Each structure stands twice: as structure tokens, then as C-alpha cells.
């Protein structure tokens, strides 16, 4: 079984789907010869040609809007937004159009497309190359939102996303692209959308996370284990539709919850997790639902001391775990 990093796993998944299905194509800025600014689509234009790996004009609304049209025609577009921060010009197309076409046509039309975008910080990307944008989209019925955090999951989830009959937002933490390596089978497989994964079992508390903070949580859990506290770490993998059962079962077992995410705290994704838990398994809770999240400032600054102050980290998460363990 070959070892791959996150980025290579995503590329392999896309490549296999393009080879298998002529309807699949890629559109985005610099996805062709340049292979994408992070190189996720490297080499694909040579294999599939310029009409299946399309260097789009610099305009996100048409990247998404044209993909919606093509998907309604029967194609399976993979739209790349160069950085998640640049998805906002396409917000209307995603939220008013892609998300609602099935619903508003009473099921007559569908939009089977994937929108891929690298998100997240810690790479000196400053306010506009570091953001987490998943909360905006996870709020929207009609969209699916996927965030893979390991190479195995990434390949299985990108293939499932491309096949999915509904629009999928596929967010890739850019700091994980080359950081995280893992075994990825050569055989064809899928990781289903809508299923969370317990990445580490534990009985003393539940940590819910995804993306970079998931890996920080796993590291922090090791520290806590050395201190005698066993932390269960759940990788959400899909933010919408949410796998409520896996989460609620874990909370029923541990009675304590910490939610870790990099986005701004206020109304970030973790807010909904806290709301569901405090509504549905209130009687199992042995302590407050805690959150470690990004600061409530517009976005993380460039200069290293400020960036560091913004970002969640293994240390910040471990500190919160210790506090929660005290209840």
C-alpha cells in the first residue's frame, strides 16, 4: 500500500474518477499547466487535455455558475477555488443556486458537482489566504460539506463527493497538504459522506474536531493520556449532513465535550455541535461544553506573533482538556 500525503491522495482520487467517467472535468484558476497553486491537479491537463482541465477566467462566480449549468446538463464538474478565502464572490451561486436547484424544482433538476478549496492558516497567508469558511456553508440546507483530515479519508471522500448527486463543498486544510502522510490502498474504495470516524478511543471526554485542529487534538490527547486522562477524538469528516449518532454516542459514554476548530469562535461550526448536544443529550453531560477556536477577529494576521496568537494549537487544546477533566 503506497504512502501518500493528503494532496497526493486527493489528486489520485480525482485522477481515477476522471479516467473512469468522461463527464468529470476540472475548472478553476491555474489548474492546467500550473497544476493549481498547490499542485493538486498537477499533470492532469497532460492526461485529459485542456477541455477537461480548464484554466478559467479569474472570476469565481462564473467558475461555480458555469459548473452549475454544466452539471444540470449532465456533466460532473469539479470546480476549484484557489483559496477558500476567494469563494465569497461565488457565494450567491453556491447558496442561492447550487443549494436550491433540487428543492426549488421539486426534484426535477440536480447539481452533481464538487467545489474544492484549500482553507486554514498557519502558513503566513494573512487575512485572505488563511480562512476557515465552512460555517457559512454548513448552515445551508442543500449543500454537503466535507473536510478530510487524513490521506485515506481524503481519497475515499473525494471519490464519494464526485459521485454524489448533490453539490459538495470539499475543504482541504492547506497546512495538512504535505504534513500528513498515510497509507492509501490502490484498490478502488470510498469513504461515505455523512459518517464521522472515531480516530482515538477514550472514556473520559469527547473531542470533536476536523482539519488541522483534529491533528492537534490527537497530539494533545497523547499528552493527556500520559497524565491519566483518556480522550476520545472524533473526526467529523462531514460537517453537513452531520453524523449525529456517532457524536451523541460518544458524549453519552464520556459525559464531557470539547470542540476544537480553527474558524472564529462565534457562530463557527462548533456552535451547532454544542447546541445539538445541549438539546439532545443534556442529561448525560457532566460539565460545560467547551470550545477551543480561532479568535474573534476578522481573520488571522500575517506577522508570526499575531498569527500564532490567533491559531488554536496543541498546547491550547491540551490546556482546555485539563480544565474540562477537572469537572
Amino acid at each position, binding site marked *: 500500500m503506497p504512502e501518500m500525503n493528503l494532496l497526493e491522495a486527493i489528486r489520485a482520487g480525482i485522477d481515477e474518477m476522471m479516467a473512469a467517467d468522461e463527464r468529470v*472535468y476540472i475548472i478553476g484558476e491555474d489548474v492546467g499547466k500550473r497544476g493549481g497553486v498547490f499542485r493538486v491537479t498537477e499533470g492532469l491537463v497532460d492526461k485529459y487535455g485542456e*477541455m*477537461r482541465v480548464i484554466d*478559467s*477566467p479569474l*472570476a469565481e*462566480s*462564473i467558475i*461555480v*455558475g*458555469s*459548473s*452549475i*449549468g*454544466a*452539471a*444540470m*446538463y*449532465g*456533466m460532473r*464538474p469539479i470546480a476549484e477555488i484557489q483559496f477558500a478565502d476567494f469563494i465569497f*464572490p461565488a457565494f*450567491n*451561486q453556491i447558496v*442561492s*443556486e447550487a443549494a*436550491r*436547484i*433540487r*428543492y*426549488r*424544482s*421539486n*426534484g*426535477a*433538476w*440536480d447539481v452533481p458537482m464538487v467545489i474544492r478549496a484549500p482553507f486554514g492558516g498557519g502558513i503566513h497567508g494573512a487575512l485572505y489566504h488563511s480562512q476557515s469558511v465552512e460555517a457559512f456553508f454548513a448552515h445551508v*440546507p*442543500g449543500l*454537503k460539506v466535507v473536510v478530510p483530515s487524513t490521506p485515506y479519508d481524503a481519497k475515499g471522500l473525494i471519490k464519494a463527493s464526485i459521485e454524489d*448527486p*448533490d453539490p459538495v463543498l470539499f475543504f482541504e486544510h492547506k497546512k495538512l497538504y504535505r504534513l500528513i502522510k498515510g497509507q492509501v490502498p490502490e484498490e478502488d474504495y470510498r469513504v461515505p459522506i455523512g459518517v464521522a470516524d472515531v480516530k482515538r478511543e477514550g472514556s473520559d471526554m469527547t473531542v470533536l474536531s476536523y482539519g488541522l485542529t483534529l491533528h492537534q487534538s490527537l497530539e494533545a490527547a497523547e499528552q493527556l493520556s500520559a497524565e491519566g486522562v483518556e480522550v476520545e477524538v472524533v473526526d467529523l469528516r462531514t460537517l453537513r*449532513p452531520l453524523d449525529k449518532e456517532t457524536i451523541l454516542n460518544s458524549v453519552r459514554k464520556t459525559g464531557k465535550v470539547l470542540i476544537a476548530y480553527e474558524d472564529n469562535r462565534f457562530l463557527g461550526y462548533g456552535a451547532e455541535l454544542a447546541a445539538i448536544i445541549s438539546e439532545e443529550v443534556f442529561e448525560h453531560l457532566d460539565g460545560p461544553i467547551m470550545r477551543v477556536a480561532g479568535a474573534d477577529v476578522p481573520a488571522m494576521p500575517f506577522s508570526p506573533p499575531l498569527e500564532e496568537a490567533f491559531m488554536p494549537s496543541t498546547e491550547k487544546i491540551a490546556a482546555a482538556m485539563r480544565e474540562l477533566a477537572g469537572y
Partner: protein
Amino acid sequence: MQLERDDLLKMYRLMLLARLLDERTWQLNRQGKAPFVISCQGHEAAQVGAAYALKPGKDWVVPYYRDLAVMLTIGFTPLDHMLGLLGRADDPNSGGRQMPSHYSHRKLNIVTHSSPTGSQVPHASGIGLAIKMRGDDAVVWTSFGEGTSSQGDVHEAMNLAGVYNLPVIFFCENNGYAISVPQKKQMGIENVADRAAGYGFPGVVVDGTDVIQVYEATAAAVERARRGEGPTLIEAKCLRLTAHSSDDNERTYRSPDELKAIRSQDPITRFTDYLMVEGILDEASQKRIREEVMAQINEATVMAERAPLPDPATLERHVYAEHEA
């Protein structure tokens, strides 16, 4: 295709059907039966002329809310329209989910559209791209008002079509107003069609009250697109003979003189006169067609009023694909 006598009569009937059906919707609105009406009155010649140049079920149509006469020309029935107007379960557009005149008909390749103006135009370019990728013979036609041409999406869509020479016909129905905002507050130019030069394809201005002229310009654009030569922007100068919608009061911004003046340019009167002069229509045939059309409308009204409303239990259906693997 050269228009024959029969074609002209068909077009006449379609224009009349659109007008009378539209008038019926206002009646139902005044009776409190239809909470919202938006009209094609004054656009019938532009719409029938344009849609008549398309192949229904083969070509793709990405319309906007004012396009009742386009729908009828492509194959929508008066009952289809009425079911949408009254929000009935069998409304083919949306099963009563969307506001009236938000058209969709999968089998006819009429693409579902929404309310945010201009957001449909990128879909047309995407369909054009897909047609080109697949090597299909279809073309895609999309429409929007002159006010909507101010939206960034319209620019982005035309730009993409220009880069890849996509088989798209952009059809701007210019009636001089975006609700109350006159064209001179919308743009610093006379003709929206002039923008096509900025995207590398032809722009044409036509008289939108002249059904034959619109047909011919559209037919030429369709042929051009089918030959793989790329998009065309057609601007049809239309009239808005009614208020923007049943929620509007146009007297706050249009003078009585103006309201009177536009009446004299009614495209239906114009085409009727032409057909009479050409001997294609006479008093008797005119009367007969009108009666047939009215009978259709009456029947559609009765059937739609009797049709059931959606079951509230269906509220949560079709958010995502059902019966997934």
C-alpha cells in the same frame, strides 16, 4: 428557416395566448386568488420571435420571470402556467415551491431559475460549455432584462462565452425599466448590445415589438452558434405595458403621458395589423383564434383552481437526492 404563412399564424396565436393568459392572471390577482403576478405584456413579440427560432426539447432555454410567451412557444401549456400561479402540487416548475413565473420544465430543457436577477446567465454559459465538451448540436438561449445587465454575473457569463466561443444566445429584453429605475440610471449607454464587442462577439439591436425581426435575428444567432462560431448578444427593445408586478404601483414613477404613449406601440396590435394587411388574417379568423385561445385559458383556469395544493408533509422532500445508494 423562412417563415411561412402557417408560422406567422402560429406566432400570432402564441402572442395572443400569452397576452390573454397574462390578463387572466391579473384578474385572478384582483380576485384575491393569486397573490403575485408578473407580466409579459409588451414583450410578446420579442419572446415569441426569439423562442420560435429554437428547437424545443433539443435546444436549452434559461429564461427569466417575464418569459411567459417564451414558455408557451417552447411547449408549456396554459394549465402549466396556472398551476404555478396558484401554487398547486402539480405545478411543473416547482410543485408550488417557487413564486409564479419562476419557470422550469426538465423535459423541455427549460432550466429552473431563481429570483436573484442575472444568476441564471452563468448557467447558460455552463450549458454552452457542456454542449461544446460533448460535441452536441444544441444551442442554449438565455434572457434577462436591461437592468439585470448591470450584474457582475452577466459580465462573467458573457466573458466566458467569448473565450470559448460557446453556443449561447444572450437575449436582453430591454423595456427601459428595472422596476422603477429608468435605463439612464442603470447604464451610461443607449444599447446593451454594444457590450458584446467587449467580449469578442457580435451584438445586435432589434425592435422587440416586431416579431419577425426578432425571429430573424435569433435564427441567425442560432445558426451561428450551431456552426460553432460562438455567441451573440441580442438586445430587443421592448415595452413594459403593465406595472413591474402586482406588488408595484407604476404611477409613482411613470407619467400618464408615458403610459398612454406606450399603449400605441402594442406589439400585438402591430402584428395583427400586419397580418391583416398581408391578408393572412381577417376579422373572422381573428375572432375564431381568439375564441379558441380563450377556451383554452378558461379550461386551464378551472382545472388549476380545482387542482390540489401541496401536502405539507412534503416540506422536507428533495433537499438532497432521495433513495441514495
